[in-house]
């Protein structure tokens, strides 16, 4: 007798439940309202997407050097091509662009290393690069010590946005930690000081802080001290960002169970040791996704320095549009290009933030 069990072959699902037709029925035409919506959006897409693609790619002008060579009906990408170096580097001397490139590549390298280094090296390399990289990039950008000096009014373009955002986030991290700890402190005076600084800088627009930096700060310093424009913008951005950073870190601190602090206390650790060894490592770790999110916000906000007269990428585009050789109204090309660059950066970073959040989720959160 043959006792082995042979299952009969599973039947295929009914043809109405799988396949493209069934999918369309379920997700596009499930009800009269859905059908109307689908038809409406399909019409919009068919009506507008092909002309946009045609404008941006098919009948766009790619080759040439002057406005007059933009003869086809589509976008005049020659405009972007001609201004590309300005958009990226501002008025930074062309022969020295390699220094900006090196600083930016270093930045990418520092970030990428954090993802690919073996676990035991990450933290050590992270701290070293956090301390050393800013100095190296400052030296590369500004010069001195054997390099030709490039004054800050020559810095500009998209590289300025990137540097301002990174410098802002780096400086705001320690200030934000101090403010966040102060806000949780048991000392009433310290708490009041920290809460009022955080709420002040969080409650007002960045523009007002930038104005404060550009018109009020020079009055605060003794006569003879000259602060350069970039420095003042940087101080303003740092104050603004620190307030947001403090709130993000407070969120992380509040998520740490009280038992952690109590356990540390019962082991005999003092306040600073408890914070440094027990609380902050955990709090900072769970704050990383939100820190990335505030970084995205800051990165977008660096365009605001155009209002106090720094030549970041958006003001470079505005200047290019006013240039007498390019008065043909290339607004859309200019804005679309800058928007695209920002979009790529911000979207990538928000994906990274989601990724880190998933990776950090050690199962403690209960939903």
């Amino acid at each position, binding site marked *: 007798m043959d006792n082995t069990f042979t299952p009969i072959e599973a039947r295929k699902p009914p043809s109405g439940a799988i396949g493209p037709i069934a999918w369309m029925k379920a997700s596009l035409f499930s009800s009269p309202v859905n059908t109307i919506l689908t038809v409406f959006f399909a019409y919009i897409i068919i009506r507008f997407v092909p002309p946009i693609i045609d404008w941006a790619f098919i009948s766009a002008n790619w080759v040439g050097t002057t406005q007059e060579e933009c003869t086809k009906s589509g976008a005049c990408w020659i405009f972007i091509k001609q201004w590309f170096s300005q958009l990226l580097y501002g008025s930074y001397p062309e022969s020295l662009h390699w220094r900006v490139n090196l600083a930016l590549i270093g930045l990418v390298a520092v970030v990428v290393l954090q993802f690919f280094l073996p676990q035991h090296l990450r933290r050590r390399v992270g701290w070293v690069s956090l301390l050393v990289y800013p100095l190296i990039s400052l030296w590369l950008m500004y010069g001195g010590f054997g390099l030709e000096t490039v004054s800050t009014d020559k810095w500009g373009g998209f590289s300025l946005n990137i540097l301002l955002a990174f410098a802002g986030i780096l400086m705001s991290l320690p200030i934000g930690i101090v403010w966040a700890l102060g806000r949780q402190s048991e000392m009433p005076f310290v708490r009041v000081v920290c809460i009022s600084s955080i709420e002040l800088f969080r409650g007002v627009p960045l523009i007002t802080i930038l104005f404060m930096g550009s018109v*009020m700060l020079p009055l605060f310093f003794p006569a003879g001290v000259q602060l350069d424009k970039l420095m003042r913008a940087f101080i303003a951005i740092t104050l603004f960002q620190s307030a947001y950073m403090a709130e993000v870190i407070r969120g992380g601190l509040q998520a740490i169970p009280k038992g952690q602090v109590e356990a540390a206390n019962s082991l005999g650790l003092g306040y600073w040791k408890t914070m440094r060894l027990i609380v902050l490592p955990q709090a900072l770790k769970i704050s990383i996704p939100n820190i990335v999110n505030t970084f995205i916000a800051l990165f977008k906000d660096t*365009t605001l320095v155009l209002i106090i007269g720094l030549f970041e990428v958006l003001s470079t585009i505005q200047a290019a549009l006013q240039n007498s050789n390019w008065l043909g109204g290339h607004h859309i090309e200019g804005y679309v290009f800058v928007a695209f660059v920002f*979009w790529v950066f911000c979207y990538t970073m*928000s994906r990274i933030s989601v990724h880190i959040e998933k990776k950090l989720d050690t199962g403690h959160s209960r939903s």
Partner: protein
Amino acid sequence: MANDTVIPKTQTKQKVAFYNRAENRSMVFQVLVAAGLAYFFYTIYNNTLTNMEARGIRTGFGFMSQPAGFDILLKLIPYEATDSYGRTFFVGLLNTLLVSFISIIFATLLGFLVGVSRLSANWLVSKVATIFVETFRNIPLLLQIFFWYFAVLAALPGVRSSLNFADSVFLNVRGLSVPRIIWGEGSSIIFYAFIAAIIGIFFLSRWARKRQEATGQPFALLWANLGLLIGLPLLAFLLTGMNATIEVPKLQGFGFQGGMTLIPELMALTVALSVYTAAFIAEAVRAGVQSVSHGQVEAAAALGLPNAKVLRFVTIPQALRVIVPPLNSQYQNLIKNSSLAMAIGYPDLVAVFMGSTLNQVGQAVEIVFMTMMVYLAINLTLSTFMNWYNARIKLVER
């Protein structure tokens, strides 16, 4: 007492050195911080006074009553170039409030629509909503304002070839001209009727809730309230003899006369602020709706509630609890972001007061301080209101 624990005399309290006691340490630390801050502010104060004297800048708020001497593009209260700097402050403030108020309404509507669309069962609708959110969230707001102002609105036709909608609404490069209602005499009654309707709604809602709690009978509150809100003013309008006319804008010479014209700066700013904030609100709405557990909806359906009621009594109240706190911060962000108006010349508080007035007067400290305080005050007011609303809709736990 029998089981009194006897503390042995030998177990005295351990002596802690004076400088090691927590309360003493914290006192010393606080005094040090206070002294440091005092020194910091004292130095700043001194330096500022010296610098201002050296540059011949006056101090105090005396400038507020001096004539300003510049005109403002958009004013909600009467203003002439001969009016004082103090009045420019209020003109700018009102313009800030105007653009913030309009944008908050549009951003909320659009944000809820897009947020719900992202969860739609319709694949196409949810994809379009996703693309909307991911596009507008990741592009700097200033760039979007520039785009709408310099690329879209500046490309509109001139005054003579305006886009014409039913001969009463005109869209051209100078703005949007719409008809205006001119209220006749005695029309203030309509306004009072409106207020009476709001008071009526308040009491009717209370009565309906009490009745339902007592008898279990529901009351068609929504329709009754809508009827009151529209009916009472309409009744007043009819009783006063329909004393209102509509003024349609007409092309005369180089511009439109009559009606109401929305300047392009206001339009560009409103569109940009609404769309940008709507993308963030949509995310908050999506998170809120997703936070309501499936079991809730299934339980409601098992009780036999129809879809609309499940939405109204089960999903929305629970989702709102998650939505309101981020909504609050988005509103605050919108108000702060409205200060970007300056970049395209919309005369908001920052542009008028921190721009033009500061340029002429030069009293940076007073003006920057005043502007900052105004934004702080607006945001705190809004925050208080939203917290009150949040407390109202919060889950009442035993």
